[in-house]
């Protein structure tokens, strides 16, 4: 297998997996943020930091 093909397939795989992972991560964030009351970004970040402390 030529080197450019090997590299190309790695890049292709990373791109596709990256897209799926980012969309999944983002959808989780959307569901979480929309499950309660409306918040500003400052409140959200504070809650996230408190969560990571627990």
């Amino acid at each position: 297998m030529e080197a450019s093909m090997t590299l190309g397939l790695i890049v292709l795989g990373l791109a596709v997996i990256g897209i799926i992972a980012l969309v999944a991560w983002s959808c989780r964030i959307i569901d979480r943020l929309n499950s309660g009351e409306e918040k500003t970004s400052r409140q959200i970040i504070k809650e996230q930091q408190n969560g990571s402390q627990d």
Partner: protein
Amino acid sequence: MAARTEVHSELSRDLNLFHVTMMGLGMMIGAGVFLGIGNCIGIVGPGGLLLTFALNGVVALFTAMSYAELSSAIPRAGGAYNFARIGYGRQASFIAGWMEWFASSVAGAMYAMTFSLYTMRFILTTWLKLDISENTFGLIVKAAAVAAAVLFIYINYRGASETGKIGAIVTLLQTAFMFVIGGIGVIIALKDPARLANFHDFIPHGWLKLAVAMGAIYVAFEGYEVIAQAGDEVSNPKKNLPKAMLLSVLVVTLTYVLVTFATIVAVKGGPDLTVGGKQLQPWQWIGSFNEEGFRHAVGRMIPYANLLLTLAVIFSSTSALNATIYSGTRASYALGRDSMLPKAFARISGSRKTPWFALLMTGGIVICLAGFFPIKEVQAAASLTFLVLFFLVNVCVIKIRRSMSDELTYGYLMPLFPLFPVLAIICQLTLVFFMHEFSVAALVTAGVWLVLGFAVYWLYSRFHAVATADEIHILEEEAAPLEPGTARVMLAVANPANALSMVKNTYKICRQKKASLELIHMVPVPDLVPLTDADKYLHEGKEGITETILYLGGHFKVNSTLRYCRNIARGILSALREKKINMLIMGWHGRRNNGLFSVGSTVDPLLESSPCDVIIMKNCCDCEYENILVPVAGGPNSRLAFETALTLASKKTRITLFSVVNGRSFDPSTLLTIDTRLYGVKPQNVAAKSVPGHDVKQAILDEAENCDMMVIGASRKPMLSHVFHGTLPEEVAEACDKSLIMVSATRGLRSWIRRWI
């Protein structure tokens, strides 16, 4: 006499997640992929084509995340136009809306032409087998393109509900068809693995060609823009808008990669792939048919491919045409709504609830382009204008998150901010750079439209634009002419008492810097109070400014400004940037806000985002200080704190540079290299002192008991980090009951960048 009542029209919210996701998909799974495969495979080769679609998906997702975040916080019709208005004001927003309108309309013309080209080719050449000249065929194609545009203008006129439902059904069918093609390709590759040899050479002309191909087919990835336009018509927009954007990019990228794979394995290598007496590789053979390469390749894989693909093109082009007309209409509607274009653009049909005049104007552009311009140039112009538009949105998302974090409620916050918008900006600039190789005519067309936009703004929009709730307005301003190069100090005045407490220190600072003085009072007016009533809130600020001018007007050139705003910090930041201020001075009442802020909702954003030095004064008075304590820890703010102390000192003042040795040590005497005589302070009046101690805060406060003034550098930690760690300088500042000054030095390149984003 009966009171006059206004009839309020608004768009109906009847699109759900499925509708808007399909709307975005319909915009993307259109002519771009059908034309792009044949046109680009010759540039990048078989493997390169797979990478082109996958990497374009990545770039599109980065921008879609920016759109998703902004749309979840500002879910209104207008998309990029609204984002730019909130981020950068009227002129930027007008240009964004203007380009958005054009980009969507150009894309609409491209889809109408593609639809017409494929259907007329099938009907006239394949089905009826008519022998007609290319000129006649070209005229028929243009007439059919115009007819298709007229049809979908009418469908859009019937209203959002019909638009969304028709578009959703058409898009669902075409997506299913594309997946069937992809599935057949996978089955063929499994049955005959030798076809995988079609991927040699993987990228025959080098990796840089990827950028050319990506730019050329970028228009196939811009569907999330139309979703942003639907902000006024989507149910639960904070959730549905961002989800629809991200899901549509995911589905479209997987579809493109799958279909590209199927196209390449569809052709079996052999002696029948000969063109002009030359034996070609399968990918070369596909590329030899240019925009029809996809049709020829798939024709070798499935029966009745010609008919099926013509049907697919009809589905895809018409749904994309539908979506682009929708998007262009909403962009011009938003411009009309805010009086940036004549109010007629905002007229909404009473029965259909659609902005009929904006639709008519958008349709006019689509019809003109489809009727008179070549398809390749139209496609390139669409890609270029979308790239420019998306670049602007990625800048806006950074700016808005930084400057309005406490004013907007978000339904989505992108992770690892600002990594993805920065990556998107870099990628888009690269693609624009390579676009010049693709079409010079596109650059000219986009440039002419841009110049026309500036002309419309300067001749019409800036005189008619109405204020929105997000803007900052100058109510009164007195400006004295200044010599170039003069340093500028801004004093933010809240009320007469606050102004008088800062007058003497401000005088000393301006004298030391040989600076002019800008006085500003921001008038925070609640959202529900109209602009016309803002003068009720002016009284205290006016008095404060008048008092300050009485004291300082005879010594320095003084300008004064009163501004209306919804948020004081954002208003002051805006003024700092506009007036190119070198130092900001403001007062602080001394009580820290709840746990969400390090100092307060006004001071925190100014310390974090100010493009200049900031001085915060607490408990200051009109007196001479005998002992000034300067706690230092070695950062850049320590130097500014020391310089400020020297500036405020009189000949008799003693200054103590104070450090607490606790783990990491800093020798305060290193700051004594500053020539104190430049400030009129004798060197023997400055001393350095270090003491050991575990409780740094208490050690500083104990030392402060012997002083009448403390000058301390603010924390350099990013905004919000205090929520997790706490910030010592701000805790000391709150606990200290003496006169106190907190300083924050400008941060070089970082502050320069912050002038813009």
